C-alpha cells in the first residue's frame, strides 16, 4: 500500500496497533493497520465479529487511543493530543451515528440535532438545517422527544445531528443494525445521497452485506489487519467475499 499524504484525505491511520489486556490475556485488536479515508467517499468497514472493525472505527474517531501508531483527522494528528484537545477535534470535525441510544431523552428532536452546535456555541445555518430536515423527512417531528419517535426516525435524527455541523467526517457504527429492512435501506440511501450530493465523508462499520453495498468502497478486516478492499460493491459480491473469509 502506498503511503502518500494528500490533502484529499479526511482521516488516516499509519501502523495502528491496539492491544487490550496484559500478558497471557493480551488481545491484539489492531495489528499494524494502514488506512486512508478519502474526502467525499462512503467507506464501509466489514469483517467478522472480533476482527477489530469497531476498534478501528473508535480509534479513527478519537473515542479510543491506539497503543501505538498514528492517526489523523483533517490533517490533525490526534494520537498526540490530550483528552480535552481530542474532545475539541471530535466537536469540530466529527459526527457520530451509533447503533442505538443516539439521542438525549430529555431534548426534543430539534434540540438533539443542534446539540453539537449548541455545545460549541456556533449558530445554526437555517438554510442547511432546513435542507437536511427536508431530505430526512423530519419536518413534522422536530418538537417530539426521542421516546415519541420510531426507531427509524430516531436514527434519521441522529444522521441529521451528524450532518448539521458539516463535519469533516461522519462515523457510523451499525446505523441500521436495529432497524427493519425498509427503514434501514431508507436510512442508508440518505447517507449515500449525503455523500453524493453534499460531498460528505462517511465511514461506516457493518456486518450486513446489503448495508455495505451502499458504500463506494469496502475495507475487509480480519484479525486486526486489512485483508482486502472492494470498489463499487454489490450485495452479492460482498457476500461472496465474506464467504471466502470463512464466514
Amino acid at each position, binding site marked *: 500500500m502506498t503511503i502518500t499524504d494528500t490533502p484529499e484525505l479526511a482521516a488516516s491511520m499509519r501502523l495502528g496497533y491496539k492491544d487490550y489486556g496484559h500478558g497471557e490475556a493480551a488481545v491484539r485488536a489492531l495489528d499494524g493497520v494502514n488506512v486512508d479515508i478519502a474526502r467525499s467517499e462512503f467507506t464501509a468497514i466489514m469483517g467478522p465479529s472480533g476482527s477489530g472493525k469497531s476498534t478501528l472505527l473508535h480509534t479513527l474517531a478519537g473515542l*479510543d487511543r491506539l497503543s501505538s501508531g498514528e492517526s489523523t483527522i483533517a490533517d490533525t494528528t490526534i494520537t498526540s493530543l490530550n483528552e*480535552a484537545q481530542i*474532545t475539541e477535534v471530535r*466537536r469540530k470535525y*466529527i459526527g*457520530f451515528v451509533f447503533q442505538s441510544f443516539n439521542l*438525549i431523552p430529555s431534548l426534543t428532536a430539534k434540540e438533539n440535532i443542534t446539540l453539537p452546535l*449548541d455545545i460549541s*456555541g456556533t449558530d445554526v445555518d437555517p438554510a442547511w438545517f432546513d435542507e437536511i430536515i427536508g431530505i430526512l423527512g423530519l419536518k413534522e417531528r422536530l418538537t417530539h422527544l426521542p421516546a415519541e419517535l420510531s426507531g427509524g426516525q430516531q436514527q434519521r435524527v441522529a444522521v441529521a445531528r451528524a450532518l448539521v455541523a458539516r463535519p469533516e467526517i461522519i462515523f457510523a457504527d451499525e446505523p441500521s443494525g436495529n432497524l427493519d429492512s425498509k427503514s434501514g435501506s431508507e436510512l442508508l440511501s440518505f447517507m449515500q445521497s449525503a455523500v453524493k450530493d453534499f460531498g460528505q465523508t462517511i465511514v461506516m462499520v457493518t456486518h450486513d452485506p446489503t448495508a455495505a453495498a451502499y458504500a463506494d468502497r469496502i475495507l475487509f478486516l480480519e484479525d486486526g489487519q486489512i485483508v482486502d478492499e472492494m470498489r463499487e460493491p454489490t450485495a452479492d459480491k460482498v457476500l461472496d467475499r465474506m464467504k471466502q473469509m470463512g464466514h
Partner: protein
Amino acid sequence: MFRLAVKSVRHNPKRLILTAIAVALGVSLVAATQVFTNSLSSGFNDLFGDIYGGTDIIVEAAPNAEESGGDPFAAAEGIFTPEDIDAIADVDGVDKAIGGIQVPGEVLPADYADGSDSDPFGGGGAPSQIFNWSGEEAVDQATVIDGRGVENNGEIVLDLDSAPALGYSIGDDVTVATGTGVATFELVGTIRFGDSNNLQGATLAFLTADDAHTLADDPNYSSVGVIAEEGADLDQTVTAIDEVLPEGTRAITGEDKAAEETEALDEILQYVDIFAIAFGLIALFVGAYIIVNTFRIIVTQRTREFGLMRAIGVTGSQIRKMILLEALVIALLASTLGIILGYLLALGFAGVVSLTAGDIFGTLTLPLDAVLWSYGLGTLVTLIAAFMPAIHASRIAPMEALRESATSGKKSLKVRNIVGAAMFLVGAGLITIGLYGDFERPYIWVGAGAVTLVIGATLFSAQLLSPLAGAMRPMLTKWFRVDGKLAANNIQREPRRSSNTAAALMIGVMLLALVATFTESLKTVVTDEFASNRADAFALSTQGPIAPEAIDLMESVDGVAFSSSLGFSEAGYDGMQRSVAIIDPETASDVFEYPSDPSIDDLGSGEVYVDPAIVESGVDVGDDITLEGPEGDVTVEVTGTIDNSGQGNFWVDFATGEELFGDVPIAQTMLVYDDDIVADDAENADDATTVSEQTALVQEALAEDYPLIALAQPGQLEQLANTFIDLLLGVISALLGSALVIALLGVANTLLLSVTERTREIGLLRAVGLKRRAVWRMITVESMVMALFGTVLGMILGVALGSALVLSLSDFGFDGVTLPWVWLIVYTVMAAIAGVLAAIWPAWRASRLDILQAIAADG
C-alpha cells in the same frame, strides 16, 4: 431470600454507601448522647459516693420541705441547734454526731484587690464551698495533705488544687468574702477531697465551727454527720435518730443519699437524652428521604432484573420481601457503624469537656440502652423508608423485562399533589391545635403536625420544582449553554426524585431558619427591654443578697444620684409557693419602665400588683388576698396588674416585704448617676466623668468590703444576653449540622445514582464533543439548583413557622417578628457552596466515564 439480598447489596455496594452513611450519622447522634450521659451519670455517681459514701448517716432538711430554689451550690439555712446535735449524739448506736455548716461566701484570689479589670462575669466558674472542719475524715470527706487541719479560730485550709490556683501557700492570709464583707484567715494546710480531689473546679475550704458560725451569721447547723458505733445496724439507728429530730428534717444513710442524688441527676440527664434524641430523630428523618430516593432509583434501574425474576416465576411479594431484606442488611450495617461512630464522638466530646471542666466522667461504656435505641431507630427508619419503593418493585410486570430501556413511567403528579396539599393543611391544623388548644401534651400535637406538614410540603414541592426548573431553563441555558439546559431538563425529568432530594435539605434549613427567626425576635425583645431602662449601672452579687450597707456605700459615692433596689423571695399563696418581687415604688419608674397598670409609682403599702398568671387563677383588682411569708401572714389589696411575667407573681413595696420576709433579700440594685456624668460617646467625654468611669469609681469603693458585688452597665448586660442567645443558636445549629450533612449526602447520592442511570447519555454527549469540564458543570448546576431550591423552600417554611411560634408567645413579651436577614443570606450562600461540594463526587465520576464503555452500557 436473605442470601439473595446480601448478595445484591454486595454486588453493587457503591450505590448504597451514601445511604448507609446517612443512616449511620443519624444513629451516631443517638448513640453518642446515650454514651455521653451514661458516663456523666457514672462520673457523678462516683462523686456522690465520695461526698456521702464515707458518712454512715446524714441528717438534713427533708427534701419535701422548703427548697432552696434547686441551686445545688446554695448554702442551706441552719436548722439544727447545738441541742439537736447533742440529742442525736445520745441516740443508741451513734458514736459521734458532728454539726455541719456552710458559709455562703467565696475564697478570693490572692491578687483580687488589683483585679481592676472588673469583668463582672468573667470568673463565673464553680463557686467556693466553705464548711466547718470537724477533723473527722468520714464527715469532712477530706484528708490533710500538707501542713495540718484547722485547729484554732482564724485558720483555714484549702484543697490542694485551689490553693496554688488562687495564689496562696501555707502561712499566707486568705481572704474570704461574704455578703456582709471580707475576712482573712491564715492558711495552715492543704487537703484532698475524697480520693482524687474531684471538685469539678470548685474551691473547697474549711474553717473552725466558730468562724463558720460568725461568717454565716447563724448559730445553727445545716446538716449533721453521724458516725455510727462499730457494728451498729444503720437502718435501726436511722429510725432511732428520726425520733429525736425536729420537724421537717430526716436521717438517711450515706449510701442511700448518694443513690438518691444520682437518681435525681439521672432524671435531669434523661431530659438531655430526650433533647439529643430529638435531634437524632431529625437527622434520621432527613436520612429517610435519602433512603426513599435511593431505593426508588435502584428499583427503577433494576426494573428489567425484577421483570425477569417475575417472568421466571418469582412472586411480587417475594420481590418486596427481598428489597426490605436489603434495607434490613443496610440498616444493620449502618447502625453498627453509627454506634461505633457515636462512641468515638462521645469519647472525643468527653475529652474536650474534661479539658475545661476536669475529670467528671466515669469510664465511657456503651450502655445497652444505646445499642437498643440505635439499632431500633436505625432499622425502623430504614425499613419504613424502603417500604414504598419495595411495593413499587413488587408491582413490576414480567413484560418490563422485555422493554428496550428502563424509563420510568410518566405518572402524573396529581395524586401526589392532592396528598401533599392535604397533609400540609392537616399538619398546619395539628400545629395550631397544639399551640392554641388546651391539651395535656401540646408538643405531641405540634411534633406530629410538623412532620405531617413537612412531608406534605415535600410532596407538593415536586409540583413547584418542575415549572421552576422550566422557568430557569432559558436563564441557565444563557449562562451555561447546553450543560445548563441539560441540568434544568434533568431536574424536570424526575421531579419526584429532585424534590425528595431538595426536601432533605429543606427540613434542615427550615429548622435553622425557625430557630434563627425565634432568636432574632428574642434579641429584639432584649433590646427593647434594655431600651426602656434608665439606670446607669446594675449591681449584682455573686453570692447571696446585696447587703443594705453596701447599698448605702454605693449611694454615698460622689456622682451617684440615687439607687433603686429590687428584691425577690417566695411566699405561700393558695397552697403554693409563689414568687414575690419587692420594689421601691418611689424610684422604680425612674430606672425602669415597668409594664404595669396603673403606674408602679402608685403601688402603696399594703397593696399588691399581680401578674397574668395570678389574674388567670381568678384574682381581680380590688380583691383582698393573703400571702404567707416566713415572718407571718399579710393581707394585701390587689390594686393593679403587671405584665412582666417571669420575674414575680406578686409585686409589693419594701414595707410589705419586710412584714413578710423580715430582711428583704436584695437581688439587684440599679444606680442612677448625677446629670453631669456623661455618656461614654458624648462630645465632651474627655472633660467630664463618663458613665464607665463613674461605674469604675463605684466598683473601686466596693472592692475592699464587698468584693462579691459586681457592677455592669445596661449595654454590657444586653451584650451578655445577646451572647447567650447567639450561643443558643450556635448549639442548635451545630446539632442540626448532622441533619444538614446528611441532606448534602442526599444530594450527592441522588446525583451519583442518576449519573449511573444516565451513563449512556453522558457518553453520547462526550462523543459529540462535550468536554469533561462541561459535564462537571452540568452536574454542578443540577446540584446547586436542587440545593438552592431546598434552602429557599426551607427558609420560607422556617420563617413562617418561626413567626407563628413567636406570635404565639406574645404573652411572654414578644411584640413582633424580626426576620434574621443576615442568616437567611448566609444560608443561601452556604446552600450554593454546598451544592458545589455535593456535586464533586458525582461530577467527577460523570466526567471520568470511559466514553466507549458508557455508550455500550446497559441502560
